[in-house]
């Protein structure tokens, strides 16, 4: 082995995070750099580990519901929906139609809120300061609807097993419709700010390429997969909560770079508005809570339910041993799986693009670490 000195070594190992603002939480990435070029990365996760799955084994089915909100805390409603659907599958009950429509409206609103937060912070990482203020301004309107509906803005605990606890408040429909009308011009405004902007295009086009084949190998789902050209959306592929009634499209792009993922998410927000508009016009009357006893005691068995969360496929696997507490709860979080592709996307690129790629993956560390 040849003698190496410090001067000979070309590789610089640099720690990025866990207290780095653009890692969107407490992600630590060990970067192996050759000058500006990234030769490899290693993710260190677990700084936000709270043992949510283990907590689930020590709580009753109802008691665990507020905890799932705290995994992907920017899309808490989607988390709650996945969990409630999984327990309902175990119990073999279905939420009443009114609850299902209300669930669709709230989850789609949450998808918009999540994408708005992503857009704001992603643009901030790239260097565009303005969108974050505009995005948060519109996100505030969504959060106000959540607060009026269930009394909390972020970790909503909006859904209960078997339906919804709270009846829709007076003026809910009107408020949602007003938001829809207000929001579409705002999306155009963000696009006006960013889509053609030369700095934005130069920073994003061709950065963080991930082909459809690679996406499938890594198990990447959500907008990242759709930007690579795969038309896969669980809302269409295996409809849940009545998604088959709504007319919407799955936006796809072909290049699979960061710019395409941006375009896919922008189009997804428009499609969400389309779903909300259809849903709000046909909220059926009737009960909002299904017939579920005070004590939830599912029969022995297991259930896996996956939904299309804003970040990708969110799955819940619950094993029941006929007691009031789950025997095992396993969560398949989209962020955790998508984060695996980081190394592939970053390798060979520039160190400045690492920030853009972490942003475009839209990870939430609460969900990665659980």
């Amino acid at each position, binding site marked *: 082995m040849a003698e190496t000195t410090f001067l000979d070594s070309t590789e610089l190992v640099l720690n990025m995070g866990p207290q780095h603002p653009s890692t969107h939480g407490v992600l630590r990435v060990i970067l192996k750099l050759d000058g500006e070029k990234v030769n490899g990365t290693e993710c260190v996760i677990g700084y936000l580990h709270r043992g949510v799955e283990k907590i689930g084994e020590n*709580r009753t089915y109802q*008691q665990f519901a507020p905890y799932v909100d705290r995994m992907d805390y920017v899309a808490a409603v989607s988390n709650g929906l996945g969990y409630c659907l999984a327990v309902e599958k175990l119990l073999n009950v279905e939420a009443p139609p009114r609850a299902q429509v209300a669930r669709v409206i709230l989850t789609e609103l949450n998808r918009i809120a999540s994408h708005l937060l992503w857009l704001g912070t992603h643009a901030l990482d790239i260097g565009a300061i*303005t969108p974050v203020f505009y995005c948060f*301004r519109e996100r505030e309107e969504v959060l106000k609807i959540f607060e*009026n509906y269930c*009394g909390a803005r972020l970790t909503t*605990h909006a859904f209960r097993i078997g339906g919804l606890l709270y009846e829709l408040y007076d003026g809910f429909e009107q408020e949602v419709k007003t938001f829809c009308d207000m929001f579409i011009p705002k999306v155009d405004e963000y696009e*006006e700010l960013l889509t053609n902007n*030369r700095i934005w295009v130069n920073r994003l086009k061709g950065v963080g390429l991930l082909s459809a084949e690679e996406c499938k190998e890594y198990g990447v789902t959500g907008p990242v997969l759709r930007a690579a050209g795969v038309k896969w959306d669980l809302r269409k592929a295996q409809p849940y909560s009545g998604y088959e009634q709504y007319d919407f499209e799955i936006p796809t792009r072909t290049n699979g770079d960061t710019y395409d993922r941006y375009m896919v998410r922008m189009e997804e927000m428009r499609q969400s508005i389309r779903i909300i508009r259809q849903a709000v016009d046909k909220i059926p009357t009737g009960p909002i809570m299904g017939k579920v006893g005070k004590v939830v005691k599912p029969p022995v068995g297991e259930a896996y339910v996956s939904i299309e969360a804003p970040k990708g496929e969110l799955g819940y696997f619950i094993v029941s041993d006929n007691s009031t507490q789950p025997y095992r709860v396993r969560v398949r979080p989209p962020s955790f799986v998508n984060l695996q592709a980081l190394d592939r996307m970053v390798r060979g690129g520039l160190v400045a693009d690492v920030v853009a790629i972490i942003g475009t993956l839209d990870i939430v560390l609460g969900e990665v670490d659980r």
Partner: protein
Amino acid sequence: MGKLFRTVFLVDLLQGLWVTFRNQNPKFIYTEQYPAERPKVAERYRGAPRLNIKPDNGETLCIACNLCALACPETLIVVGSERNEATRRKELTEFTYDTSRCMFCGLCEDACPVDALELTQDFEMASYTREGAIWDRQMLEEGPKPTQYRN
């Protein structure tokens, strides 16, 4: 040719600047001047817990059934009760609510059969000590009394 024109005359950047210019209007100010201006929270807001009392005689509504303590995922509620031999009823002696561990999920409120325990619209619950975050029965009945700032 069109692309060259757009590049030279910075059309894309001016387009963005025009958006920010349109949003300059002072009527689009969304900042809330918090301590001076009180935010309006929703009717269903889940904030500081309160143990309701009958307004006419000040007796508690709580029947010491312990359901809230059982419903709480964090088991932060402790209900103390004592059997009154004269009325043959359970009576509430003490009620402890650890707000430092509370995540305001509202399950205790749902569990309460007599609407005695309620999560209110109060949201200013800061305290200087850890012990201050553990609320006893008196604190729960009176509610937090934060300093009101005005300018």
